[in-house]
């Protein structure tokens, strides 16, 4: 499976019809819903208000959400019931509703959370088959009392309010557009461009990035404007294509103040050839090379972003803000439009803030913390002294920051790990 295989994958969803005598029959293939998704959860609801149960299906594979319309044409009768309880449990969760119709007793309970990870509609649905009228409706409320309601008509939607005894009509769903034909979604995979906005910025100011001209240079020496560290190799076609795009739209990128620093991963004997390529694309300024120490450092930094199993690719680029902190990692070629959009976002951001929320559009409720200590230990193990010292300072600063937070404002509650 770790090599891209499956484990009990490509399994079709199953459907069984109740024969009414204790037996069921497998109708998966003719159900119209035997999707081959890795499905997880399904919920019931009469989405189109036509008196039968439609389904919403959540899964792991694309598309993650499906809406399935029930096409039942049996003309079965129905009753739909919403509940209002008295007291704090106004939703009347746990109430049991029993409907007698056509000489049969139908029993349903209102749950909050069942199946797997899911909650269905709180409107209870009673299929009544060919029954012409409802004979009785009773509710066993969560407080233990039982209440009979006036028998309603058939094929209606009602609200039963505890203590009222008389059903109220429930809003009728009008669905003018529901004559639409089936509208499947085409399963698709997104283009394999891996733009990875960082949840928390990745400090790299002390990163040693040897240049052809300036061999002791660090990222902090470039600060003051955003920097794109671009890893490439002379034998990597996609790297050259990407450089072509940078050249073509260099004016737009420069207007955003971006410095592109290319770092070749070629062997030393290929440096002359690499420099020629850079001249062709106008990218010689600030260009440099990846030495062993930088390789080891990048290995740790990229591992912090990608985890243990996702691999980095060439070309790979890290967008760094003007204070020397990584904000977006591009694992593969980056489109110039994407880069411009990210630069635009970056220009509106506060550089001091370690979070990087502007790239997400939402909020975190639980704390996300860079593994500064773990990285520091890795740097130490590999003898990367500058980075070790830098990360020790960062760790101390973060501790102080958190202490101040706890002394004053309410800190973010800690996350799981």
């Amino acid at each position, binding site marked *: *499976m*770790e090599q891209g295989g499956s484990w*009990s*994958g490509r399994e079709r*969803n*199953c459907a069984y*019809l109740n024969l009414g005598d*204790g*037996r*069921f*029959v*497998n109708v998966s*293939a*003719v159900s119209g819903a035997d999707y081959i*998704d890795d499905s*997880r959860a*399904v*919920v019931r609801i009469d*989405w189109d208000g036509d008196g*039968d149960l*439609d389904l*919403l*299906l959540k*899964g*792991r*594979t694309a598309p*993650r*959400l*499906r809406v399935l319309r*029930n*096409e039942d044409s049996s003309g079965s009768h129905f009753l739909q019931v919403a509940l209002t309880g008295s007291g*704090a449990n106004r939703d009347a969760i746990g109430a049991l509703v029993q409907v007698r119709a056509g000489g*049969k007793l139908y029993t*349903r309970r209102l749950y909050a959370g069942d199946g*797997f*990870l*899911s*909650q*269905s509609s709180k409107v209870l649905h009673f*299929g009544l088959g060919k029954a012409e009228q409802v004979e009785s409706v009773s509710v066993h409320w*969560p407080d233990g009392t039982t209440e009979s309601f006036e028998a309603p008509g058939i094929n209606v939607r009602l609200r039963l309010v505890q203590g009222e005894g008389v059903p109220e009509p429930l809003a009728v769903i009008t*669905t003018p*557009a529901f004559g639409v034909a089936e509208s*499947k979604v085409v399963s698709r995979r997104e283009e*394999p461009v891996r733009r990875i906005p960082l*949840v*928390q910025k990745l400090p790299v100011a002390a990163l040693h990035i040897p240049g052809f001209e300036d061999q002791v240079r660090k990222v902090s020496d470039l600060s003051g404007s955003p920097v794109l560290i671009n890893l490439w190799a002379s034998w990597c076609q*996609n790297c050259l294509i990407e450089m072509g795009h940078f050249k073509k739209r260099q004016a737009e990128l420069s207007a955003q103040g971006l410095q592109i620093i290319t770092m070749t991963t070629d062997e030393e004997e290929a440096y002359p050839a690499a420099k020629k390529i850079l001249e062709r694309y106008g990218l010689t300024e600030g260009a440099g090379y990846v030495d062993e120490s930088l390789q080891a450092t*990048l290995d740790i930094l990229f591992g912090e972003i990608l985890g*243990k*199993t*996702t*691999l980095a690719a060439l070309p790979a680029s890290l967008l760094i803000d003007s204070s020397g902190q990584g904000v977006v990692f591009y694992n593969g070629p980056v489109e110039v439009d994407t880069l411009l959009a990210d630069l635009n976002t970056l220009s509106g951001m506060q550089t001091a803030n370690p979070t990087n929320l502007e790239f997400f559009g939402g909020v975190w409720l*639980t704390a*996300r913390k860079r*593994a500064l200590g773990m990285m520091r230990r890795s740097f130490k193990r590999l003898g990367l002294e500058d980075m070790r010292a830098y990360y020790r300072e960062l760790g101390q600063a973060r501790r102080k920051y958190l202490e101040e937070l706890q002394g004053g404002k309410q800190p973010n*509650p800690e*996350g*799981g*790990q």
Partner: protein
Amino acid sequence: MQLHEIRPGKLRAVRHLLPWGCMLAAPLIAFGQDDDQGGEGEGQQRSGAIADELQHVDPTLDGWQTEVLQGKAKDMVYEFLQRTYASGQRTQEAFSDLISEGFEGATSLRPKGMQPIELAGGTLVFRPELWDPDLEPASSLAGQIEDLCGALGSAGGLRFAVKMVQCRELEDELFEAEAWIQVDGRSEEGAVQQNFAWHMRFELGEEDRAMLRSIELRDFSEVHTSGPYFTELTEFVLGDLPFFERELSLGVDDYHYKVDRLTGNSFLGSQGLALGDVNGDGLDDLYLSQQGGMPNRLLLRNADGTLRDFTKESGTGLLDNTRSSLILDMDGDGDQDLVLAIGPNVILLYNDGELHFDEHVFLGNDVPTDIFSLSAADPDGDGDLDIYACRYIDNGIMGGNPTPYHDANNGSPNLYWRNEGDRKFKDATEEVGLGVNNAKFSLASIWEDFDSDGDLDLYVANDFGRNTLYRNDGERFAEVGVSSGAGETAASMGLSCSDIDLDGDMDVLVSNMFSAAGRRVVPNQEKFMGGAHPTVHQFFERHARGNTLLVNRGDGSFEDTTEVAGIELGRWAWGGRFVDFNGDGYEDMYVPNGFVTGPDEDDL
């Protein structure tokens, strides 16, 4: 996109650097990650415990001879089905090269004299209980096949699905195997599906091909419908949402490779959904739980059946990996609040009455393991809703792999949060007796009054331990899973309850793992845990059997009617549910399936 080979030289030393293009089929799973936030325990478990026992890359190398034989049998069955159904030429000659010269015969393949059961909407079901078990001579095989295949009439677009569930070596060059087979097709009149089980004997013929010696029918059903029960409306309902393409129409792994590991992103797609009328307009809205880094979504229903985004306005677009959500009025103030499972925390988001959910209440826990399903009810009858949270693996020092695998009790404890009023909750798990047998790798729970005594009992689906049933005795709960007949040992993932036989009490559908490999390997292979006690084998066999139907006897004890009902083949089931497809009042079932589908075609 052009691909590149990896060049020699220093790139080799850089673990994370590979040329672009190699990644198109990149390694996918973050299994075994111990330092990633929100790494999914279930995956680690399966990849560890089951893989060690069941997954073998090349069965011949480690002596799993029957795994090789079942592969040959499966190939032969597919070939046989292709020829007999598709060709229309069902003479003996059409398949004579698949039949051994020593062919002993076949039972009737479609039992004779079946009376159809008519269901709502004109659906016809043929489901015999008895048929002649005797083998008929080889000369009648063509006729039997004509009976079987001819029942599909003019249906086209035939599909075949074959699961090998048993395989055993007999004497020299002979073996037997059982296959569950599904055939379906469509015609102008509607659709037809046949389900049958064949118990077959084979001999190895030329080039070690499996040749049929006999076929015995072990199960049969056939359904004719006027059309599909469901069609898809996904694009109509969701297609206009601005993030449809970049979020909703994508799979979980499409996103997984594009995120910082700090998102706590989870690979297995265990994020659910909840329905509820959040804005009080009489129409149910939708809250989608999402993987880490992708905002949860609050989607309001429009009158025309489409959805509109209300995430930002409501402040509910949380980026934390959210497994489960509930839409409920938790404080009795008349509006709908949200209850979320994020990491080990239950987080309540209270609605201010104007659809702002800015007030958060955290119910935290010292054991930092993630919550899966949530459920809420009022089991103590004090008028407000309490919360039950299922938890899975314990990553702590004392935790780890489920031990013993088939009835583990070393997972992370589930939590019962009792509502104390005024938006305050107390962990009352131990106090009320729910701490018993409470570490069984739980994935789902349901509150139901199984013994019809007027209060709500709790049934919990456990992946690696027996399922637990907590009977509500008023002040406290008593764990009666085994004695009630609900102590299911299968790997359970989901629960649904309803009254399937219209007798007024509530029955249970348990969604379990079904593994054809497990069914084959466990009972028949000496090598599978050779030396283990026979009861352990039975546990394992049950562990992979599939879904379970528990019919309530009315007093809270259960009869397992799974085999009579014929619903085992739920595949790798998750949150199966009772759903009345055809409005006849008898609950049908829909079972979502599948564990992890990778880009390659191979699977167990």
